[in-house]
């Protein structure tokens, strides 16, 4: 496993319902990342289709593997790149049951996927109407490190990132489609989730205007001490290269020993109390 990896934060806008065009953009940015020496390139939540697609989700969702992941598998193989992106995933066992999924592809093929656990359904969000929630946190032991996947609103629930970290993730990749009025929350929470778990956290947000929503961008890499190491522009497409040094986890964990100090019995109490809310 590499101790240092280079990451490209590919903060793109998507053309809604135009998978062909979005795949072409993903390909273009992946090649650019390769040229700049990146090991991993990360794209936003639902970047394959756009975010505000409503009922069209049933036409756009694909199985994994499926046509789009096969194209990106080929791209990863050709470039030697690792790619993380978001797409609506059609369950193989059904005809119209869809998850909001983050997909992790490498030169060796599909490494894994994560289905968003917390689906916002309030204010402008209507994800529970369309998506089945995921039930499993994930962390993958890969040639470029131990990497976990989470999506957007999951960040408001510290147990998701914590579980991902406890599964072994040293870099937690959050893909997102966050509209501008919520920017401050994510700026706070990305730092908090990284710090409290002493893990790297890469956050890649969508940009562009979809219906009335304006996605704010601001993608970033946060250190295990909560420091913003690299940051993309607000509100416009951007491409930012940054580096993760897994050696930095050691001093972070010794100085901020939150994992050592974990109290498992509190989780039992948390479960009981949350059931009684």
């Amino acid at each position: 496993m590499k101790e240092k990896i280079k990451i490209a934060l590919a903060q793109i806008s998507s053309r809604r319902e135009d998978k062909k065009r979005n795949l072409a953009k993903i390909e273009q940015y992946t090649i650019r990342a390769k040229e700049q020496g990146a090991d991993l390139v990360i794209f936003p939540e639902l970047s394959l289709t756009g975010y505000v697609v409503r009922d069209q989700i049933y036409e756009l969702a694909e199985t994994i593997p499926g046509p789009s992941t096969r194209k990106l598998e080929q791209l990863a193989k050709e470039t030697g790149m690792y790619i993380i992106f978001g797409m609506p995933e059609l369950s193989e066992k059904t005809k119209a049951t869809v998850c909001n999924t983050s997909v992790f592809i490498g030169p060796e093929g599909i490494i894994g996927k994560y289905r968003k656990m917390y689906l916002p359904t309030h204010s402008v969000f209507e994800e529970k109407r369309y998506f089945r929630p995921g039930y499993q946190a994930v962390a993958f032991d890969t040639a470029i490190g131990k990497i976990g996947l989470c999506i957007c609103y999951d960040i408001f629930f510290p147990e998701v990132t914590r579980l991902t970290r406890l599964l072994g993730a040293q870099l937690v990749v959050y893909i997102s489609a966050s509209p501008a009025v919520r920017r401050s929350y994510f700026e706070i929470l990305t730092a908090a989730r990284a710090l409290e778990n002493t893990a790297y956290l890469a956050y890649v947000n969508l940009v562009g205007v979809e219906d009335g929503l304006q996605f704010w961008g601001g993608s970033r890499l946060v250190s295990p001490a909560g420091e913003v190491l690299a940051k993309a522009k607000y509100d416009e497409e951007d491409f930012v290269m940054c580096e993760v040094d897994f050696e930095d986890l050691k001093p972070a964990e010794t100085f901020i020993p939150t994992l050592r100090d974990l109290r498992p019995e509190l989780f039992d109490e948390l479960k009981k109390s949350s059931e009684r809310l």
Partner: protein
Amino acid sequence: MLALKYLPTTIKRWKREEVELKPTALEVNLSDVATRIQRFIRTYVENAGVKGVVCGMSGGIDSNTIAALSALAIGGENVLGLMLPEKETYNPKDIEDAKTVADIFGIQTQICDITAPLEGFYESIPIFDPKEKLSKGNIKARTRMIYLYYHANKLNRLVCGSSDKSETMMGYFTKWGDAAADIAPILDLYKTQVRKLAVHIGIPSDLAEKPSTPALWRNQSAEGELGIKYEVLDLVLFGLERFMASKEIAEQVGLEESQVEKIKKRWLAVEHKRRLPLSPKLEYRTVGTDFRLPHSIY
């Protein structure tokens, strides 16, 4: 306390019990709002593949503001400001004010006198009653809409609407008339916020403070008809937006609870004006109910 200084846009007040219905409650980051509105207009014009926008320019603050924002977003040469006077409500000051803004922002303008078609309507409607102001006035608003859409179709442009949040919540507009548009850039701003935004982007303050009128009949006053100053109405609506109880709103803004209840009832009663026509549920997916598609595919 959450680090409020990091909140960049309009959502600064999130905890109901902390809402104080004072004028400061309506303060927004004007620079940020102006940027977002311009980006919204620019994106929709570009993605729709049209050549610009058509705005009705009555000389009032809402239409002056959307015309100016459009010009800042896509260039004044791509904005057509239509002035649509008619003899009963004709006021040369309105034309002058619209022209002032058009000159500042380089907006193209066109005057179309709509008196003749209006008189044609009056003469051709057998039950037409000249004394009944509202039905007659609504013909004017809908006729203006026809002119806006004719120019938009002919010139391959979008109609940029001037509805604001105060009048939209109150239903203070003509159904299928002045609210008819392709995009509505200031729909999420209360009237008093629009006035501040107008000054921020360079509209002269005397025009920003000009009393609003729908110009459906002579000397019509929006505040007169609504029975309340916008400075107070906006605070009431702001409280309703944040789920505050009528009693609490009344206490904070210095109104009787019955007055707030009256505003609340009106807001709820006119939802039909803000939506597609209601249809009985008969089939698999129903337009306007559970046929849920993106507003546009752009």
